[in-house]
């Protein structure tokens, strides 16, 4: 399904690095971004992830030049562009609702940036054809945007944003308006585009699955601040705070305090061992569901593991995995996830079981 690119391959342009320094944005009393620092490496796929109101779209628009920050600078390859108007920045941009010009054909839409650059007419024709081929829409050049489906329109928007060989591509929740199947298809396509083009992609989304799947690095935003910046693996396996742990992936959280010998659960006073070097000021203990195991007999639980008794509330079969919902006597709800068929017999709703985990699989967080 992927197009062969040997004949139509555009010269791979190297991406630009973007450096955001102490950028703040306020609207009246409302602070949307607070002293944000972020270094986006040349050629990487960086995702700005966050809930609505986290400031991710505002940050993207500041990079694009549509919003002026109250303070701070934006630099591209070391050059300060904070006051540069958007039409001089040369970044490609893709929007959630495509923003295709309805009064122009698909080909004219894609040709638009090339005309602005005063490219010669026949070169425009070839490059438009190339770009449309790259998104597998070569045959639709003469149609109007209104005649295309949502997925097709978004591909045209992509073609239009890359045809003029920008060094940076900005994407503002581009897949939000599409249905699940289409979204997954386009996620793979965008990833492929990134690998082929080698330019810097800055991607905004609220969908953590999407972020994990597509990014080289993720910046998680909350209330105008970057809470954590790292690779998908780092965000998933090594969240630095409770918000990150809960936003990216499912998690089991025990609240309590750290005392001399370990973690004491607030709810029932239970004691759990903690990894070495854990933060003594931590107030929560986090275990990912796939690291939480279930045993029907206490005898089956290895000595070195932390354990807690629980009652099975529900077993949810999801095809490639099984999720078990548990509840401790103290009222804590836990989630255990395994690939079938490793769930032991006896794990049925109502059963009394033991949930256990390796100390090193847990993390102490704020």
């Amino acid at each position, binding site marked *: 399904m992927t197009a062969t690119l040997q004949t139509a391959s555009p010269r791979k342009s190297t991406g630009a690095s973007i450096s955001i320094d102490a950028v703040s944005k306020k609207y009246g009393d409302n602070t949307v971004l607070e002293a944000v620092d972020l270094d986006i490496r040349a050629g990487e796929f960086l995702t700005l992830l966050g809930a609505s109101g986290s400031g991710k779209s505002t940050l993207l628009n500041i990079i694009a030049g549509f919003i002026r920050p109250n303070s701070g600078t934006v630099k591209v390859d070391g050059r300060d562009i904070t006051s540069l108007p*958007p*039409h001089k920045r040369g970044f490609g*941009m893709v*929007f959630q609702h495509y923003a295709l010009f*309805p009064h122009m054909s698909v080909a004219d839409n894609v040709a*638009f940036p090339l005309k602005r650059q005063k490219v010669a007419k026949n070169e425009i024709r070839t490059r438009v054809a190339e770009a449309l081929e790259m998104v597998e829409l070569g045959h639709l050049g003469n149609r*109007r945007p209104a*005649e295309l489906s949502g997925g*097709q329109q978004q591909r045209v928007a992509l073609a239009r944003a890359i045809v003029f060989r920008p060094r940076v591509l900005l994407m503002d929740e581009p897949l939000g308006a599409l*249905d699940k199947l289409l979204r997954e298809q386009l996620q793979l396509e965008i990833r492929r585009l990134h690998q082929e083009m080698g330019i810097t992609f800055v991607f905004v989304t609220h969908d953590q699955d999407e972020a994990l799947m597509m990014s080289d690095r993720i910046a998680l935003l909350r209330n105008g601040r970057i809470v954590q910046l790292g690779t998908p693996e780092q965000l998933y396996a090594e969240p630095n705070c409770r918000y990150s742990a809960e936003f990216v992936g499912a998690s089991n959280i025990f609240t309590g305090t750290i005392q001399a010998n370990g973690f004491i659960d607030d709810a029932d006073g239970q004691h759990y061992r903690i990894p070495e070097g854990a933060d003594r000021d931590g107030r929560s203990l986090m275990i990912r569901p796939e690291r939480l195991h279930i045993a029907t007999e206490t005898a089956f639980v290895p000595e070195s593991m932390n354990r807690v008794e629980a009652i099975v509330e529900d077993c949810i079969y999801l095809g490639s995995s099984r999720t078990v919902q548990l509840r401790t006597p103290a009222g804590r709800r836990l989630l255990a996830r395994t690939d079938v068929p490793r769930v032991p017999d006896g794990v049925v709703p109502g059963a009394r079981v033991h949930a256990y985990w390796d100390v090193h699989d847990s993390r102490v967080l704020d």
Partner: protein
Amino acid sequence: MTKILTRTGLAVLAALIGVYLILPILIVVPMSFSDSSFLSFPPEKLSLRWFRNLVDDPVWLESAWASLKVALASSVCSVVLGVLAALALVRGRIPFRNTIIAVLLAPLIVPYVIIGLAAYIAFLQLGLTQTTLGFVLVHTCLAVPYVVINVVAGLVAVDRRLEMAAMSLGAGPVTTFFQVTLPLILPSVLAGGLFAFFTSWDEVVTAIFLSGPEVTTLPVQMWSGIRVQIDPTVAAISTLVLLVVFGSFLILGLTRLIRRLARRRVTGPATNTGA
């Protein structure tokens, strides 16, 4: 039962009102074909003599030409000033916004008698009465609110992100306006321009103040053809004017309809699972 009675009563009343609304057209058009110079009703003999008089008598042609010049110039000025103002209202920050909007729309509310008198007194000293320029200046004031209202409505419907997209693709603000915004608001601009044209073309009250032997517009010529004694040529002009006005709005409506139909025919099945 009472519902049916009231409904029928309403329908009869509405029918009468409908006739009342279009009464002038029902009267003037047949009468303009009457042969008698007394325009008796019903017209006994039919002829085109009053239409011929229009062409023969230079007075009518001159005033029509003056009206045309003024209307064209006023509508062009109204469109330029009005589109700029509409852009400012929808996209920009304006101090004392409500006061400024009140000033922009004031010509719609202030009686034309007052505007005419004020313009006459002020222009007399400037030597602008009985000049095409004077007419154009006043008529632009009267017409521009219609342009502003129409274009604002059209602009509000344009998605800002289209303009943002254009800018991200290298188009500066001016290029974005001409390449993206203007094509999208063109129907509103044209509608406003048409309103402006006919506002000027038909305008009689301020024209009475500003007219004289040097420059007279068609409505003023018609006015003198009614005030003193009925000149039947006025009926002929009215019919022609009605034809032109209706014709242009009809054409405007038809072109919109045709464009909409044409677009629909080309659309194939639009599904959301397309590749």
